[in-house]
């Protein structure tokens, strides 16, 4: 029997390592490089903006608590999903998400469009004890969110880290001006890193998400985040057939 040709690779750890890396990077390159080149799959829609400092802290808590282990944030373009959750998710809607929360594990429902669906009160009640509003729920209780004050000391650093990945938070007057042109003054103010702490407290106080104005809790942040999910794009502005053409 002829000597098998790949024996050279199989019997040499160095070559095996190089060949394995090559094989893996082909897979990666084929999937990732096109995303930098293809420009007609990112929908051109208005309204998508980075999260405010309060929403972003809520997002951090969402990730810390592992909500993503049971919830996805991507409505697939299927009829049953559209009927239950609303409009399918667009690529543009998660362009500022780091890391994105698309996911495919759904023990609970998809949350991509949960913003505005329920009241703040419902979310608070539901997070403290899901069974009190949805008797058959298997979601765990998160009562500590309501009693734990939100740590806001490092919120500026968190936004700066996101800015390094390309999210347009502004760190100086020039960037602020560009944001104001792009998103309008109101949003631009929220995205200004030097004011992050003040903005966070102001939004929590005005929104009163957890029903208690006296302090800013983790509940305030998480509910503010949940309430903005999927609400940035106004789909009445777009014809369904136009969104089809981005695929």
């Amino acid at each position, binding site marked *: *029997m002829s*000597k*098998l040709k790949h*024996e050279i690779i199989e*019997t040499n750890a160095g070559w095996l390592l190089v060949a394995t890396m090559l094989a893996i990077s082909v897979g990666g390159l*084929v999937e990732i*490089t*096109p995303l930098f*080149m*293809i*420009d*007609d799959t990112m929908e051109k829609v208005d309204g998508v903006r980075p999260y405010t400092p309060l929403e972003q802290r809520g997002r951090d808590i969402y990730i810390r608590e592992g909500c993503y282990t049971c919830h996805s944030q991507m409505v*697939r*373009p*299927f*009829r049953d999903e*559209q*009927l*239950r959750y*609303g409009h*399918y998710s667009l690529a543009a809607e998660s362009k500022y998400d780091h890391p994105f929360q698309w996911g495919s594990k759904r023990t609970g429902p998809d949350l991509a469009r949960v913003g*505005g*669906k*329920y*009241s*703040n*009160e*419902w979310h608070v*009640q*539901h997070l403290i004890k899901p069974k*009190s*509003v*949805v*008797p058959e729920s298997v979601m765990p209780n998160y009562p500590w969110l309501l009693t734990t004050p939100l740590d806001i000391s490092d919120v500026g650093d968190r936004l700066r880290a996101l800015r390094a990945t390309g999210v347009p938070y502004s760190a100086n007057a020039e960037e602020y001006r560009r944001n104001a042109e792009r998103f309008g003054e109101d949003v631009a103010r929220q995205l200004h890193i030097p004011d992050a702490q003040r903005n966070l407290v102001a939004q929590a106080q005005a929104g009163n998400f957890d*029903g208690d104005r006296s302090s800013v809790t983790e509940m305030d942040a998480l509910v503010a985040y949940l309430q903005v999910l999927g609400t940035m794009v106004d789909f*009445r502005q777009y*014809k*369904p*057939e136009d*969104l*089809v*053409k*981005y*695929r």
Partner: protein
Amino acid sequence: MANETARTPVQTTGHVWDGDLQEYNNPLPVWWIYAFYVTIAFAVIYWIIYPSWPVGSGFLKGVGSISYVNQQGEEESWHWNTRAKLLRETQAAAALQRPYYDKIASLPYDQITKDPELSSFVLSAGKAIFSDNCAPCHQAGGQGVIGHFPNLTDDDWLYGGTFEKISESIHKGRRGYMPPFGEALEAGQIDALANYVLSLSGLKADAEKAARGRELFHSHAAACYYCHGDDAKGRQDIGAPNLTDKVWLWADVPGAADDAGRLAAVRRVIAGGLDRGVMPAWEGRLSEEQIKLLTVYVHELGGGK
């Protein structure tokens, strides 16, 4: 094993452990190799049929296409993709339900409930929409949760139980507001008011305190009458509930163990006020037809007027 080896000598890797342990170096089974080639062929066919490979700043569109109707009512088609497929399927399903939805959109409410075929459509379609959107608050049967979400099956309405009022509740959402009296009034006054409120429903209350509460209720200091009405039967334009009907939403009177508990529940509401009763607005999230259908569904839950 020993026999087989003797029959068909195979290559080994050449390593020997412990004097006699060797490692075979068999070629892959033929069936496995062919199955592997088949998966490659499958992938090539898939690339041809469906959108796949990136080329330059675009990608191969595949050979399939899907047609659907655009907003001008013209037939239009695009290369196969899941969004186009969804649009087509949505339109096909809408066409099937069209006869029902057209009737629901054009008929006045009371005609819908009189038509047995339409009523059963409302019941089944309404149940599905209600479960997805309303049940997390109002519960699956519409019975609500005391202290949080109103019961929609009884004939006691905060904002009114006519088709028009129910439709308005769903379209615009609702947000009831009662100011807190904990600072404006003294503890004794709040206690008196609580006794009066309980007495209105025929529950046990201290007669002397209730009489004092009755006075306060109609006084300028508390001004309860301004929202709940002179007769305490409520004002539906602002969602102030009828306090005389034994139906409780915010004060958990039915859940209290004893008279003291009932009093405390009412005192809490008066002292703390209410502003957490928020019903989200569904205009824009649900279609006009879905809202009309839900209006009839809620009306028929038992309490419609």
